[in-house]
C-alpha cells in the first residue's frame, strides 16, 4: 500500500510541471544567479567599483598612494568635471581626493592639527559593507605610507615609537557618502529595495484571482454581459494601484516611525522630491500590474499562478539588485541586472531617497517602467482576447 501511495505521489508531482519548476528550476536559477552576482564579493576583483582620483598634492608619496590603490582596484576613470554629479546619480562609485598637505602631514609626529588630507567621497547608495571596506583599505594604505615616511625621516628608530607617535593615518582621512541632505543609513538603503520587491508581489494576487475568475466562469459571464476587455483590465489595475500606494505608504511609515522604536535609525524623507518619488512608485506599480495581467493571461490554473508568480518575482529581485546590490556584481551581471524591471524601479527609488534625485533624475527609469507596463498591458489584452476564443 505504501508503495502504491508513494507511486501516486510521484506521479502527481511528475505531472505538475510548475511545481517541479519550483522544486528544481528555482534553486538551480538561484545558484547560478547568486554565484555569478556574488562572484566578486568572495573573490575580490581588481576592478569592482568605478572611481576617480583628484591629486591636489602631486608629490611622490601621493603618487605612491595612487599607484598602490591602482594595483588593488584597477585604473581610475578619467576624471570629468561633473564627477560629483556622477557620484550623486550612482554612475560613479567613489572619488579619492588627496589634499595639498597630504605629504607634509604624513611626516608630522602629531596629526591632531593637520586636518583632513585624504577624502573618500562615495556614491550615496554605496552599501555599508563596501563603504567600510574601502575606507579601511584606504586607511591601511595611507598608514603604511605614513610609517615609511616617518621611519625614513627619523635619524634613529628610537625616535619613532608607537607609544609617542600616532602611526595610524586615521586622523588624516575622512570618508563620507555624498548625500543630498539625506543621511544614508541601512534603512535608507533597505526600504527602497524591499518597497519595490513588495510592490511587485501584487503579481501573485492579481494572477491568482484572475485565474479563479476564469475557472469559475465569472469572467465569461462578465463578457456575455458586454463588459469589454479594456474595462476588465482597468477594473483590476485601478484597485491594485491603490493597494500599491497603501503598501508604499506603509513601508515608508515603517522606516520613518517603527524602525526608530525598535532601536534602528529612522528613514529620512527630508528634502525628498515627492513628485519624483510618486512618479517612480506609479511607474513601478503599473509595471507590476501589467506583468501580473500578462501572467494571468498565460497561466491556466491556480497552481501555476501560485508557483510562477513568486518565481518570477524572486528571480527578478535576485537579478535586479534587490537581494545583491548591483554594484558588487561583475560587469556582465550588472548588464543583466539592467534588464530587470525591478532594477529600474530600485534605481528610481534610490535616486530619490538616497541621492536626492528630482524628476530629471528619475524620468529614465520611470520611462522604462512605463514602457514595460504598456507592453505588458497590450500583451495581456491580446492574450486575453485570444483565450476567449
Amino acid at each position: 500500500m505504501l508503495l502504491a501511495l508513494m507511486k501516486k505521489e510521484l506521479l502527481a508531482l511528475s505531472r505538475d510541471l510548475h511545481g517541479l519548476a519550483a522544486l528544481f528550476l528555482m534553486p538551480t536559477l538561484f545558484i547560478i544567479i547568486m554565484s555569478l552576482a556574488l562572484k566578486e564579493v568572495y573573490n575580490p576583483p581588481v576592478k569592482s567599483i568605478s572611481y576617480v582620483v583628484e591629486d591636489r598634492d602631486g608629490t611622490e608619496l601621493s603618487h605612491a598612494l595612487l599607484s598602490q590603490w591602482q594595483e588593488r582596484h584597477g585604473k581610475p576613470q578619467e576624471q570629468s568635471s561633473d564627477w560629483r554629479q556622477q557620484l550623486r546619480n550612482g554612475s560613479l562609485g567613489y572619488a579619492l581626493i588627496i589634499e595639498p598637505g597630504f605629504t607634509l602631514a604624513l611626516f608630522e609626529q602629531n596629526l591632531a592639527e593637520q586636518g583632513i588630507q585624504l577624502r573618500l567621497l562615495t556614491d550615496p547608495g554605496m552599501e555599508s559593507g563596501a563603504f567600510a571596506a574601502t575606507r579601511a583599505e584606504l586607511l591601511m594604505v595611507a598608514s603604511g605610507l605614513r610609517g615609511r615616511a616617518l621611519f625614513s625621516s627619523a635619524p634613529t628608530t628610537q625616535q619613532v615609537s608607537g607609544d609617542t607617535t600616532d602611526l595610524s593615518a586615521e586622523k588624516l582621512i575622512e570618508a563620507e557618502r555624498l548625500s543630498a541632505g539625506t543621511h544614508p543609513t541601512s534603512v535608507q538603503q533597505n526600504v527602497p529595495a524591499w518597497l519595490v520587491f513588495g510592490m511587485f508581489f501584487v503579481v501573485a494576487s492579481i494572477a491568482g484571482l484572475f485565474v479563479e475568475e476564469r475557472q469559475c466562469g465569472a469572467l465569461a459571464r462578465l463578457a456575455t454581459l458586454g463588459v469589454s476587455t479594456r474595462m476588465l483590465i482597468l477594473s483590476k489595475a485601478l484597485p491594485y494601484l491603490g493597494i500599491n500606494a497603501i503598501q508604499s505608504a506603509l513601508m515608508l511609515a515603517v522606516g520613518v516611525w517603527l524602525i526608530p522604536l525598535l532601536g534602528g535609525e529612522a528613514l529620512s524623507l527630508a528634502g525628498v522630491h515627492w513628485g519624483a518619488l510618486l512618479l517612480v512608485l506609479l511607474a513601478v506599480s503599473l509595471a507590476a500590474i501589467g506583468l501580473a495581467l500578462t501572467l494571468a493571461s498565460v497561466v491556466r490554473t491556480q497552481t501555476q499562478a501560485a508557483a510562477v508568480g513568486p518565481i518570477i518575482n524572486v528571480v527578478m529581485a535576485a537579478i535586479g539588485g534587490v537581494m545583491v546590490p548591483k554594484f558588487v556584481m561583475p560587469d556582465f551581471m550588472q548588464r543583466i541586472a539592467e534588464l530587470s524591471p525591478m532594477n529600474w524601479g530600485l534605481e528610481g527609488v534610490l535616486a530619490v531617497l538616497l541621492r536626492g534625485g528630482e524628476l530629471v533624475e528619475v524620468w529614465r527609469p520611470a520611462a522604462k517602467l512605463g514602457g514595460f507596463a504598456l507592453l505588458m498591458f497590450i500583451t495581456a489584452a491580446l492574450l486575453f482576447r485570444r483565450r476567449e476564443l
Partner: protein
Amino acid sequence: MLSIRDLVFRYPHSERPALAGVSFDIQRGEVLGLLGPNGAGKTTLIAHLSGALPVQQGEITLDGEPLATVRRKDPTRIAIAPQEYAFYPMLTVHENLACFAAAARLSGARKQQRIEASLAFAQLERYARTRAAHLSGGLKRRLNLAIALLPEPEMVLLDEPTVGVDPQSRAFLLDAVRTLAQYGTTLLYTSHYMEEIEAIAKHVVIIDDGKVLSAGTLDDLLREETPQVRLSVDALSPEGVQPLLARFGRVESVGTEWLVKLLAGETPARLLSAIEAAGGKVRHASFGRGNLEQLFMMLTHRSLRD
C-alpha cells in the same frame, strides 16, 4: 424569434467541426429543451448564443437582426446561467448580485429593485449576506439563476441547471423555469435528465456530432407510429415471459423492463390479460406515448461518448 441557420463552427486545430450545419428556431416565450450526449455541441451552441463565440459560418438572428448586432446594442437581451458556478465565491450573495447588476449597466433605484426582485425570485433573501462559497449546491444554482435574471433578459440559456442539487432544489428550479415561461421569457434548457425536459419543454431539439438529429414539439417527437407497451413483470422467469410477449409483437429487453411493439390488431389489454392468465404479475405498464429517453438513445445510438 431566435433563428439559427446552418451554423458551422470549428475550434482551432480541431479535425471535426463542433457544429456542422445546425438549424432551428425558438419562438418568443417558448421553453426549448436542447438534448445531446457529451460532446454533441450543446455548449458550443450556447456559447454562440451568449456571444462568447463568434459565428464562423451560418447565421443567428433575433427578430430578424443578426445576433452580433443585437448584442452590440444591448448585450443583456440574452442571459446565461452556465453549467459552472459563474460567480465570486469570496463575495456574499448580495455583493455578487450588485457586481453583476453593475456589469449589466443597471444603476440607482433600478439596480436595487432588480437585485431585490432576483433575490426574491430565487428565494435567496435569507442568504443575502452569506458568502457564496458557503452556500449549498442547490443555493449556488439558485444564485446562478438569480444573476442571469438581473437584467430581465428576453431569453435565458440554462445549461444543465440542476446538476448536483437535491430533489427539493431541482423541483424549485423547474418551477422557476415554468414561472419565467409564464411571464413570457424564452428559455433554452439543456439537461441530461430527460424527465426534466419532458416536464418543462414544449419543444425539443436533439443534437449529436454537431448536427440536429431531431427537432419538433415534444408531443410530435414522442407520438408513436407503432403502438408499444413498456412493462415489467414479476412471478415469471425471463425465459417464460419472452415467448409469451413475442405472441403480441416484437420484444426488446430494456434493463429490467420489456418493450413490446404490438402487432396490427393486438391491444395492450389483451397483452396484460395473457400475462395474468400465465400466472405473471404486471408490476408496471405504460403505453400510448413514447419515452424521451428511448428516443434519445435510439437517435444517438447508445454508445458511450466520453
